C-alpha cells in the first residue's frame, strides 16, 4: 500500500469518499491524485464556511477584522489548495492514464506536501492577523508591519506558506507533467485512454505546464529574494531590487494572470478530451481537432501579454501603448473562446450526447466559464476599466473563473471517480448537484457583477451604505445555494457504492 493510500484510509469522513481501489493494479495512477482531491475538498469545506461568513459579518455588522481575515483566507483557500490542487490532481490522473505513466515520483508527493503545508502556514498567519488578501497587495505586507497591523513574525510565516505554494504551482506540478510527457517508460498496464500531444486533450496539458513554469519563474525569483532577506539570510540592502512595489506588482500579475490562463487552457483541454466519450453515436471524435488546437494556440499566444489590463488605471505609469496592447490581446482571447464554443457546439450538434452528471457538470462549467469570459473582456477594455477596476465586478470575475473551472474539473473528476475508487456515484444526486451549483454560481456571479456596476468596492468591510447591502443578501442567498450543491456532492461521494454492488453499471470508457 502506498503512503498516499495509507493517509487516505486514516482521514475521517473524507477518507471514505476517496478511498483508492487497490484491486485493479492502478494504485500507482490513483493514489496521489486521490489524496490531492481529498485535500482539495477539505480546503473547499473551509473556504465555503469562510465565504458564507463574509456577507454574514457584514449583515450583522461584526468587527471589520473578521471580514478581512475571512476574505484573505477564503481567497487563498479557493484559488490554490482547492481549485489548483483539484485541477493538478485530476490533470495528473488524466495525463498518467493517457501516457501510461505512474504518478509516484518525488514531484507528485512534494507537490502535495508543499501545497498543503504552505496552505496551513498561510492560514495560521492569517488567523494570527496577517490580512493581505489573496492578491498580497505588496507592499501592504511590509507596510502592515511598519504600521503595527501585524507582526514581522506573522509576515515571515505567511510568506513561508506562500513560497511553498508557489513552488508547488510553478515548479513541482509542471515538472511532474513534463516528466510524464517526455521522460520515463510507457507502461501498457497503466494506459486507460492513449493520447498524444497531437490530441487537443493533451496539448493543453503541455501548454499549461510550460506557461506556469516560464511565467511563474520571475515571481519565484523575486519572492525567494524577499523571503531570504526576511529570514535574515540575505541583507535587505541586497534585495532592494526585489522589494520595489512595482517590481513585485509586475512579476505577481505576470504569474497570477497567466496562472488563470494556464488553468483555463488545461480545463478546456480536459473538456476536449472528455466530451467525445459521451457522444451518442460512439464516434468519439471532436468536430475538428485542428480547430480545437487552433483555439488553444490563440488562447495561449494572446493571453501571455494581456496581463497589462491589471494596470490600465495607473496611466500614465503604464504607457497608453501598453494599455492598448493589453486591451487588444484580452479581446483576442475571446476569438479563441469563440472557436472553442464553435467546436463544442458543432460536436454536440453533429453527434448528440448521452446525459451523465459528469458531462453535465463539464458543460455547465463551460457555460459559466464563457459567461465569465464576457465579464473579463469587458473589464479589459480601457474605457470600462476606469469605472469597474477595484469594484465587485473584479471580485465577481475572479470568483466566477474559479467556480466555473472548479465545476468543469469536478465534472472530469465525476468521470474519473469509478476508475480512481472502484465505486459508482448516484446519477440523480449528481444531476441535483449540477443544477444547484449552476443556479448558485450564476446567481452569485450576477450579484457580484451588478454590485460592481453599482460601484460597490471589492475587499471592503462596509457594505451598509449606498444600498449595497442588497447585493450582500443576494450573494449570501446564492452562496448558500452553492454550499447546498456541494453538500449534495459530498453526500454522493459518501453514498457511493462499489461497481460490483451496482452490477457494474456502464460508464463511458477511459
Amino acid at each position: 500500500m502506498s503512503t498516499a493510500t495509507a493517509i487516505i484510509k486514516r482521514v475521517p469522513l473524507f477518507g471514505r469518499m476517496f478511498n483508492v481501489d487497490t484491486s485493479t493494479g492502478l494504485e500507482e495512477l490513483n493514489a496521489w491524485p486521490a489524496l490531492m482531491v481529498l485535500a482539495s475538498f477539505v480546503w473547499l469545506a473551509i473556504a465555503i464556511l469562510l465565504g458564507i461568513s463574509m456577507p454574514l459579518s457584514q449583515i450583522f455588522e461584526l468587527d471589520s477584522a473578521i471580514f478581512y481575515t475571512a476574505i484573505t483566507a477564503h481567497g487563498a483557500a479557493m484559488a490554490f489548495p482547492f481549485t489548483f490542487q483539484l485541477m493538478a490532481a485530476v490533470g495528473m490522473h488524466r495525463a498518467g492514464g493517457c501516457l501510461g505513466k505512474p504518478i509516484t515520483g518525488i514531484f507528485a508527493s512534494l507537490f502535495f506536501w508543499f501545497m498543503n503545508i504552505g496552505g496551513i502556514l498561510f492560514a495560521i498567519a492569517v488567523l494570527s492577523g496577517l490580512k493581505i488578501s489573496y492578491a498580497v497587495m505588496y507592499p501592504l505586507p511590509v507596510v502592515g508591519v511598519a504600521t503595527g497591523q501585524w507582526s514581522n513574525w506573522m509576515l515571515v510565516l505567511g510568506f513561508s506558506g506562500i513560497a511553498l505554494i508557489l513552488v508547488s504551482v510553478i515548479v513541482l506540478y509542471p515538472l511532474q507533467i513534463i516528466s510524464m510527457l517526455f521522460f520515463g517508460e510507457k507502461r501498457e498496464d497503466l494506459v486507460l485512454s492513449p493520447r498524444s500531444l497531437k490530441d487537443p486533450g493533451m496539448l493543453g496539458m503541455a501548454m499549461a505546464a510550460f506557461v506556469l513554469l516560464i511565467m511563474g519563474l520571475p515571481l519565484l525569483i523575486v519572492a525567494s529574494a524577499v523571503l531570504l532577506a526576511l529570514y535574515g539570510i540575505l541583507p535587505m540592502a541586497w534585495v532592494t531590487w526585489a522589494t520595489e512595489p512595482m517590481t513585485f506588482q509586475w512579476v505577481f500579475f505576470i504569474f497570477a494572470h497567466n496562472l488563470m490562463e494556464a488553468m483555463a487552457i488545461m480545463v478546456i483541454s480536459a473538456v476536449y478530451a472528455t466530451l467525445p466519450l459521451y457522444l451518442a453515436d460512439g464516434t468519439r471524435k471532436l468536430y475538428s481537432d485542428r480547430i480545437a488546437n487552433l483555439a488553444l494556440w490563440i488562447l495561449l499566444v494572446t493571453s501571455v501579454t494581456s496581463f497589462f489590463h491589471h494596470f490600465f488605471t495607473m496611466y500614465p505609469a503604464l504607457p497608453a501603448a501598453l494599455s492598448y496592447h493589453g486591451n487588444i490581446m484580452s479581446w483576442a482571447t475571446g476569438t479563441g473562446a469563440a472557436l472553442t464554443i464553435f467546436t463544442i457546439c458543432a460536436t454536440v450538434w453533429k453527434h448528440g450526447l448521452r446525459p451523465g452528471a459528469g458531462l453535465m457538470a463539464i458543460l455547465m462549467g463551460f457555460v459559466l466559464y464563457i459567461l465569465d469570459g464576457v465579464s473579463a473582456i469587458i473589464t479589459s477594455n480601457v474605457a470600462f476599466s476606469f469605472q469597474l477596476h477595484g469594484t465587485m465586478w473584479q471580485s465577481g470575475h475572479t470568483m466566477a473563473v474559479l467556480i466555473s473551472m472548479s465545476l468543469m474539473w469536478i465534472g472530469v473528476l465525476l468521470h474519473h471517480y469509478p476508475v480512481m475508487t472502484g465505486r459508482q456515484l448516484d446519477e440523480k444526486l449528481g444531476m441535483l448537484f449540477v443544477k444547484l451549483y449552476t443556479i448558485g454560481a450564476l446567481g452569485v456571479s450576477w450579484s457580484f457583477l451588478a454590485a460592481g456596476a453599482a460601484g460597490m468596492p471589492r475587499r471592503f468591510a462596509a457594505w451598509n451604505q449606498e444600498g449595497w447591502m442588497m447585493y450582500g443578501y443576494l450573494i449570501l442567498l446564492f452562496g448558500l445555494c452553492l454550499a447546498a450543491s456541494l453538500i449534495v456532492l459530498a453526500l454522493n461521494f459518501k453514498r457511493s457504492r462499489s461497481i460490483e454492488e451496482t452490477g457494474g453499471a456502464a460508464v463511458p470508457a477511459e
Partner: protein
Amino acid sequence: MLEFIYLSGWGAFALLLSFQLPFMFFFLHLIYKKTYVDSAPSDTSDEKITKFKNIWMTVVVVLFVAVNLMSIQYMPAVSSARAVASGQDVMEVDVTAASWSYEMSTREFVAGKPIRFTAKSTDTVHGFAIYSPDGDVLFTMMLVPGVTASSLIYTFKEPGTYKIRCLEYCGAAHHEMSDEIIVKASTS
C-alpha cells in the same frame, strides 16, 4: 446611449447581458435538444456547419472590433488629450494618498471646467475613485508607490458633493479611507 454604455457601470452591465444571454440560451437549448429530445447523430452536412462557423466568427470579430473602436473616445488618455487640445484652462489638483486618508491641493471645483487629477501614494497601493452624487463611479485610479503619479483630466458636469473612496485594499481601515469634494455651479 454610447455615454451610458462606456461611462457607467450599468452600461457595462447592459453590454455584458447583451453578450451573455444569447449565448447562454442558445447553448442550453442545444444541449437540451441534443441530449433529451433527439440525441441521434445529426444529418446536417459539414458544409453547413462550416458555413455556420464562418458566420459565427465573423459576427464575433465584427462585434469585438466595434465595441473597442467605439470605446476609444472614452478612454481617459484620449479624453485627457482632447481636453488639453481644446485650449481650455486645465485646473491642476495634486492628490497624495497615505493609509488611510487623502491630501488634496483643493477640494472645491467648478462644474464644466476641466481638472487634471495627479495622484500618488506614499506608502502602499491605494485607489482614488470619485463617485457621483448618485453613487456611480466616475473614474478610478490605481496608485502604486514609487512610480509616476497617475493622472487624468475630468470635467464635472453637475454641481454637488462627490464622494472619494479607495478601491484598492490597503489594510485594516481600508473601508474608512474616503473623502469628499464639492463641485459648484459655473458662474459664467
